[in-house]
């Protein structure tokens, strides 16, 4: 029987569509109202909450916790001070990405890691002789993402400290008398916070947030609206834009940190004082210039998209729900492959189709034109797209202080 999250009793009351998917064994709303786009505008123009409770959560504690994570995570955990959170990835020996997640550093030797996939066995196996314990607390907490330009206005009356929270900062706090951890994090690329709350306090905390959000048009949003926002934010999603190298059958299904656009997490890789899994392979790949792919944004001119469809007597449909397949890209009209878009959608904000794509490195320069496969009336055509830097959308408010 599928499980429900700690917020489910209340959020399900607000779900007028009854549309759910399954996420890590939990019911997870695809959308709450008939229009996912309207929920999405909640993220971009008001505020909205997303139930991220199905994330796996692990306490990583002990005198060697930092040392443990230093060697495991590709990003340098030493730069994450207590009271900060850090987005990170971890790789295999070949520098291929295993997974990504967020580390919350509660204390010098106390971290909480959230991840999309189960990792307890893997993490415990890596401990070896270090003084570290890894505890699975996935079911113990609810995670509520409160995202959007009004999110701070909604949270501040409940928790005045959030006004001082910088991007990826975190703080213990109380909402409605219940202890919570609030971090300025999220997966939407907008101003936003995540509230981690013990499961038994989930409902009163949610209720307090919903009440405070009422005058600010706070609404819940589901996976579809999240999918739209995270593409605009240029955030790749595991099992959509890439899959763990752990489960690959061949190298075509594996991607290095460089190839997935995670190069920014490798800052300091030349610093020999930190050895981490995959470092040598990643250094070699960079030094020998052997990356097979580059991750880029692609942007389709709406006029071209329209013209192609109208030419074939089809009303051009602009679907903001990301397509659930990888779309082939070509270098030119001779169908020479350039790569593929792993996520593709019509962005109501950008007013055009945008996508996250992997292209051959020589095509990664912004401004390069690639050709996107489109099937119209059961025939293959292409529409030109421009390679652009990621993210597509990066508002100042995401990182600015009040």
């Amino acid at each position, binding site marked *: 029987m599928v499980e429900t999250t700690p917020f489910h009793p209340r959020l399900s009351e607000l779900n007028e*569509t009854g549309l759910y998917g399954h996420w890590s064994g939990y019911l997870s709303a695809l959308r709450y*109202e*008939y*229009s996912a*786009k*309207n929920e999405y*505008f909640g993220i*971009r*123009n*008001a505020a909205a909450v997303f139930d991220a409770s199905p994330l796996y959560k692990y306490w990583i504690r002990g005198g060697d916790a930092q040392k443990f994570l230093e060697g495991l995570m590709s990003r340098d955990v030493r730069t994450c001070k207590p009271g900060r959170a850090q987005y990170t990835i971890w790789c295999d020996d070949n520098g291929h990405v295993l997974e990504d997640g967020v580390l919350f550093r509660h204390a010098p030797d106390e971290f909480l890691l959230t991840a999309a996939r189960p990792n307890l066995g893997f993490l415990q196996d890596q401990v070896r002789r270090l003084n570290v314990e890894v505890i699975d607390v996935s079911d113990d907490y609810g995670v509520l993402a409160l995202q959007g330009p*009004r999110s701070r206005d909604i949270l501040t009356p409940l928790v005045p400290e959030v006004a001082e929270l910088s991007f990826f900062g975190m703080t213990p706090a109380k909402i409605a008398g219940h202890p919570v951890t609030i971090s300025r994090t999220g997966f939407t690329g907008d101003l936003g916070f995540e509230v981690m709350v013990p499961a038994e306090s989930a409902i009163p905390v949610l209720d307090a947030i919903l009440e405070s959000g*009422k*005058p*600010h*048009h706070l609404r819940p949003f589901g996976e579809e609206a999240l999918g739209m926002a995270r593409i605009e934010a240029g955030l790749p999603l595991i099992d959509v834009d890439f899959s763990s190298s752990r489960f690959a059958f061949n190298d075509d299904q594996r991607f290095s940190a460089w190839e997935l656009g995670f190069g920014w997490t490798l800052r300091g890789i030349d610093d020999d004082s930190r050895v981490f899994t995959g470092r040598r392979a990643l250094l070699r790949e960079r030094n020998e210039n052997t990356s097979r792919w580059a991750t880029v944004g692609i942007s389709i*001119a*709406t*006029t071209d998209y*329209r013209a192609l469809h*109208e030419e074939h*007597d089809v*009303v*051009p*449909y*602009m679907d*903001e729900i990301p397509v659930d397949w990888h779309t082939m890209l070509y270098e030119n009209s001779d169908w020479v492959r350039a790569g593929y878009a792993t996520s593709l959608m*019509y962005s*109501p*904000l*950008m*007013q*055009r189709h945008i996508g996250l794509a992997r292209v051959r490195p020589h095509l990664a320069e912004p401004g390069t034109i690639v050709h996107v496969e489109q099937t119209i009336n059961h025939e293959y055509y292409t529409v030109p797209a421009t390679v652009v830097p990621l993210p597509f959308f990066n508002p100042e408010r995401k990182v600015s202080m009040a």
Partner: protein
Amino acid sequence: MSEGNQYDAIVVGGGHNGLTAGAYLAKDGLRTLILEQRHLVGGAAITEELRPGFQFTTFSYGLSLLRPEVIQELELVKFGFMPLEMPTTFCPMENGDYLLMGPDHDANLREIARHSPRDADATERYDHDISRVLQYLKPLFDRMPPNLFSGDPEDKAEIAWLLKHLGSGDKKVVHDTVRLLTGSIADFLDDYFESDVIKGHLASSGIIGTKVGPMSQGSGLVYLLLALGEHDGNIGSWSFHKGGNGGVTQVIGRAAEAYGAEIRLNSHVNHVLVNNGRATGVVLDDGTEFHAPVIISALDPRRTFLELVDSRELPSDLVEAIERYRFQGTASKVNFALDAAPRFPALGDRTDQYRGFINIGPSIEYLERAFDQGKYGWYSDRPYLDCCIQSFLDPDMAPPGKHVMSCFTMYTPYELKGSDWDTERENLGDAAQRTLASFFPGFDDLVLQREVVTPLDIERITGLSEGNIYAGEYLAPQTWIFRPAPGYSDYRTPIEGYYQGGSGTHPGGCVSGGPGRFVSQQVLKDRRP
């Protein structure tokens, strides 16, 4: 003459088309000056904070027809363009029931079936038939109208293309198109529907801003104009731009300035300087002169041809056509600041029905009776109202928990018989408010402030003649190749260097930017050696 007052192009009027034209010209490298008479750009697409925290969309209030080419070519997204979805349309009925349409097709069919099971599948057929008509007509809308009478090879080629396109239409599509272009929306709807509220809801789009009733010939054409737009590819859908339509014109204004155009506010152009059949500049009311070889009027045709220039400079057929050109504004706005959301008894405390248009036009008869009064020179005592509580769409429109409500109000003829709008303004506001209170009990108690904008106010404030929101009635003989006059629809004028690009030219009215785009294309074409 100082060097500083010399430009490559001067645009008269900082409405959305003037800004659009100016942005295109500046983007192409022309030293461009946009002159706006008021203290803010936007013309009839402005948003004003009439009460602290309350943003009023004084005139224009919805977005659908803005040409996607304009959005893209001027890269408006970079300058803050952000159309918000309006997921619902709410149609209260006089018996206390309602029709509530939302973004889910199947849920809508069930809602329609509540009023008439037959009308549910009729809606699907109707939507498809209309979509095909729009698909057939859209190229005409999006192309510069040819001059049928010029004999110019380019015009001839365009006419040949048009004939080929029109000739390729499916039999039913062609016939439906002619029925809508020439007939009434009421007749067309009768073929599909039996429910009054569904017909009232759809017929409302056939009367917007025009002195026709749903039973009048001509309402089919207005219906098509309002259906030709889209939101993100959804044909006929309307959106609400962040900050209202004043938000849109601020965006276009920012784009124009970013491309190098200079916008000068509080600069009312007195007249265009013409020397030997050639436009050379403009003179402001205070005598300041600006000179340029290209002058674009983004004002309406009456002002363009009869006021900005001496009509003796123009051929008499044009002058006569413009004298005949019908304005007869018939729409008003009644805007409210509200203390709380209105309550609709049948929906209890729900407010999700307010996230789009609220259509007070529950039947064709309701609309036609409203028209009956308008026809004879008086305003409807129970007007048709197209409302929107915009603070539900964009929380920045009003303080938390409070709301702004925009009510487009018809019929309110520019010329009143036996009275005038300065006398009747608040009486009209009362009629609108009374009508709202009859659907939303207790409405009067919510009103913090009311703004009534009659056709006379529209004319006084924006300069739109007789307060016509389209810069000239959208009637067949005044559209497309006849807009604004037969043989003068190519954005040029008989005065060399003098161009027209306001909503009184194709494909205006509404906030389309099409005229501004086309006139800039024509200017740039004429400048090429």
